[in-house]
C-alpha cells in the first residue's frame, strides 16, 4: 500500500499523517522509558547507599575493637606472697582418685594466695617513680590477669621465686581511655579510671609499653562480666554452631521429605490444599511466636533444659522448615513433566522416578534453600530469648544440651551492657563477625549452586 491511499480501517487518515502521529507519540514514549529507567537506577542507588552506610558504620565502629591495649610486664612470683606448699606428687600406693583430690586441694590453696598483689607489684615496676596504690595499679589491666598468673603457676610451680615477662591485656577502662572513647575533660568523679591510673596509662602508652595488639581472644574467649576486656565470642559461636547442626539435621530431612511427599505423592484434594496454605502461612509467622511455642512445648511439656542449643536448634528448625519446604517444592515443580513421563513410561515406579530423576535435578535448589534457611536461622534472636538462651554463660558448651548462648544473642547482650564506652565497639565487632559468617554462607550457596548447575 502506498502513501496517500487510505487503508480501509483507518478512515481518511493518510499514511503520511499516520507516520506523523506515530512520530509525535515517539518522543513521549522515549521520555517515559527514560523516566522509568532513571527511577530504577535511583532505587538501586538508594538501596546500595543504605547498605553502604550500614556496613560503613558497623565497620567504622567495630574495627577498632579488634585491637586492644596490651602490655608486657616483668612478673616476680614472690614466695612471700604466694604461700604454697610444694606441688603434691603421687605417692606409692596412692589411688589416682586420692591423688586428684589432693592436687585439687593444693590448687585451691594456690588460688587463695594474693595474686592481686603479684599483679600490682609487676605494674608498679613499670613506673617505679609513681608510687601507685595497689588499687590504681590493678585498674590498669584486666582482672583476669590474676587467673592467668595462677594458671601459669599451677602448670609450673618452679616459677616460685623467678621473674618472667608476661603479656597482659589492658582493662576495658584503660582501653576506652587510650582510644579516646571517653571525654578526657570529664571531672574526676565521672571518669572510670582514677587520676593516677589515667596518668600511668598515658605514660606507658607514650613509652610504648602499652601497645595496640590484635585481639585474638575475641574469637577464643568466652563472654566475661568481671573482665570485660577479655570477653570473646567463642561460647556464642559454638552455641550457634550446635544450633546450625541441629537445624541441618532436622530441617533438611523433614523439609525435603514433606516437600517430596506433597508434590509427588499426595493426592491433590482439599486437605493437601489446606496443608499448602498453612505451610505458606507458617513462613510468615513472626519468629517470636516460634519461641513461645518452643518454650511451651519443648521446655514446659517435654522438660528439655533451658538455654540449650538443642532446644534452640529445634525452635529454629520450626522456623526454617517452611522455607525449605517451599523452596524444595518450587524446584520440584520446575522439573519438566516430560522427564517424569520418560521415567514412568519406561516402567519406573513413582519412587524410582522421584529418586533417580527428579530429586537429583532439584539438588542445587534444595542446597541453596538450606544454606539460606540456615543463614536466616543463624541471625535469629527473638525466639532464643524466650527459651533462656540470653543467660550469661561463661563456658564453651561441651554438648548441645549444655547452657549456651548464640551469636546474635551475644550481640544483644553486649548491646545492653552498662559499660557502653567499651561495649559499643565490641558489639559492632560481634556484628562484623556475624555478618562475615552470613556472607560466607551465602557465598558458599552461590558457589555450590553454580558448580552443581554447571555439572548438569
Amino acid at each position, binding site marked *: 500500500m502506498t502513501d496517500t491511499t487510505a487503508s480501509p480501517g483507518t478512515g481518511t487518515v493518510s499514511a503520511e499523517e499516520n507516520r506523523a502521529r506515530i512520530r509525535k507519540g515517539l518522543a513521549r514514549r522515549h521520555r517515559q522509558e527514560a523516566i522509568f529507567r532513571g527511577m530504577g537506577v535511583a532505587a538501586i542507588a538508594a538501596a546500595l547507599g543504605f547498605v553502604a552506610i550500614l556496613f560503613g558504620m558497623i565497620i567504622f565502629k567495630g574495627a577498632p575493637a579488634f585491637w586492644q591495649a596490651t602490655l608486657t610486664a616483668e612478673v616476680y612470683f614472690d614466695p612471700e606472697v604466694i604461700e604454697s606448699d610444694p606441688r603434691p606428687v603421687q605417692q606409692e600406693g596412692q589411688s589416682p582418685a586420692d591423688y586428684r583430690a589432693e592436687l585439687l586441694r593444693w590448687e585451691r590453696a594456690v588460688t587463695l594466695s594474693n595474686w592481686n598483689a603479684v599483679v600490682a607489684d609487676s605494674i608498679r615496676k613499670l613506673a617505679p617513680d609513681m608510687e601507685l596504690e595497689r588499687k590504681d595499679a590493678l585498674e590498669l589491666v584486666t582482672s583476669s590477669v590474676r587467673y592467668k598468673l595462677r594458671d601459669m603457676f599451677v602448670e609450673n610451680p618452679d616459677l616460685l621465686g623467678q621473674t618472667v615477662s608476661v603479656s597482659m591485656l589492658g582493662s576495658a577502662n584503660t582501653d576506652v581511655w587510650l582510644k579516646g572513647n571517653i571525654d578526657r575533660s570529664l571531672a574526676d568523679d565521672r571518669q572510670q579510671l582514677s587520676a593516677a591510673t589515667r596518668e600511668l596509662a598515658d605514660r606507658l602508652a607514650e613509652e610504648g609499653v602499652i601497645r595496640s595488639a590484635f585481639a585474638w581472644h575475641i574469637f577464643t574467649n568466652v563472654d566475661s562480666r568481671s573482665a570485660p576486656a577479655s570477653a570473646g565470642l567463642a561460647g556464642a559461636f559454638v552455641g550457634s554452631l550446635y544450633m546450625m547442626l541441629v537445624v541441618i539435621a532436622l530441617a533438611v530431612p523433614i523439609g525435603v521429605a514433606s516437600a517430596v511427599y506433597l508434590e509427588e505423592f499426595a493426592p*491433590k484434594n482439599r486437605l493437601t490444599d489446606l496443608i499448602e496454605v498453612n505451610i505458606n502461612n507458617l513462613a510468615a509467622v513472626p519468629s517470636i511466636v516460634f519461641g513461645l511455642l518452643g518454650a511451651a512445648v519443648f521446655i514446659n511439656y517435654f522438660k528439655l533444659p533451658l538455654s540449650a542449643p538443642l532446644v534452640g536448634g529445634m525452635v529454629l528448625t520450626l522456623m526454617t522448615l517452611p522455607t525449605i519446604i517451599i523452596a524444595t517444592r518450587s524446584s520440584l515443580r520446575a522439573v*519438566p513433566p*516430560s*522427564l*517424569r*513421563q*520418560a*521415567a*514412568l*513410561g*519406561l*516402567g*519406573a*515406579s513413582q519412587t*524410582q522416578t522421584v529418586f*533417580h*530423576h527428579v530429586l537429583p*535435578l532439584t539438588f542445587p535448589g534444595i542446597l541453596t534453600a538450606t544454606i539460606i534457611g540456615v543463614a536466616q536461622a543463624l541471625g535469629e534472636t527473638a525466639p532464643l530469648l524466650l527459651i533462656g538462651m540470653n543467660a550469661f554463660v561463661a563456658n564453651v558448651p561441651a554438648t548441645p544440651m549444655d547452657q549456651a548462648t548464640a551469636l546474635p544473642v551475644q550481640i544483644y547482650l553486649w548491646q545492653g551492657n552498662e559499660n557502653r564506652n567499651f561495649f559499643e565497639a565490641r558489639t559492632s565487632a560481634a556484628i562484623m563477625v556475624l555478618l562475615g559468617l552470613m556472607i560466607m554462607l551465602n557465598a558458599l550457596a552461590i558457589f555450590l549452586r553454580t558448580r552443581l548447575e554447571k555439572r*548438569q
Partner: protein
Amino acid sequence: MDTTSQEQTKKFEPPAATAAAAVETATQTGSKTRVSARDVNVHYGEKQALFDVSIDIPDRGVTAFIGPSGCGKSTFLRCLNRMNDTIEGCRVTGKILLDDVDIANPDLDVVELRARVGMVFQKPNPFPKSIYENVAYGPRIHGMTSSKDELDEIVYSSLRRAGLYEEVKDRLDQPGTGLSGGQQQRLCIARAIATKPEVLLMDEPCSALDPIATAIIEELIDELRENFTIVIVTHSMQQAARVSQKTAFFHLGKLIEEGPTEQIFTNPLDKKTQDYITGRIG
C-alpha cells in the same frame, strides 16, 4: 511375562536376509490381534474425551492414529500403557486386552505393563544423564541383566537398532541432552526398545523434528515393525500413509473409521474421513 520376553528375545535377531520376507508374511496374513480395545470411554474431570472406542491392533506392523488436533488420539494411546493414570482427574472405563490380560483393570501392576508397552513421546525427552545411562536405565530397573557385559550388549544393540550407534559410539559417556533433536528422539527410541517391549507407542514422534530427521525416524519405524507392534499417532497424513499398514481416524473423541491404510486413504467409507484426508476438516 517371562516366556513372552524370552520369545521376544529370540525374535529380536532375525537373519537379515529373511527379515523383509518375514514382514511380507506378517502384513499379508493380516496377522493376529495383539491389543483389542472395547468400549473405551475417557473423562477428564467432567469432560468426556473419548466415546466408546473399540479397535483391534494387529501384531507386528504399524497402526497409525490420525485425526484433527484434540480429537483424542493421544488420550487413547495413553490408555494402552496406562499413562493416563498420571493425569489428575482422568478416568478410563472399558476393556483393553493385551494378550487376554485386561490392562484397563485398576488392579493391574502398571510397572509390569509399561515394561511390556514402551512409549516414545512427542518432544524428545532424554534423561539428563549419559547416553549409555539413558539406554541402560530401563533394563537396570527391571533387573533384566545379571552382568555388566549383558547390559553393555543390550545398550549397544538397542542403539544399533535405533540407528544411532555409529553416531554416538565414541561418546557414550556424554550427556544425552547434548545430541541434536533427531538424535535425541532416536535415543529415546533406543531407550524404549532396550526393555524389549512387545508394543511400542509413539505420540507424534516427529512433530518436533526437521524433515531430514523425520525421514530417518520413518525409516527406523519401518525397520522396527519386524519385531514390534507399533502404534503411532501422527498429524501428518503423508506420514501415516508412508509408515503404517493400518490406520484409524478419530474425530471429536470418536473412532470414525479404521482399516488398512491403503483403503482409508484411497477409498474411505465415511464422509468425515474423506473430508479430513482431502483437507476439508482439521
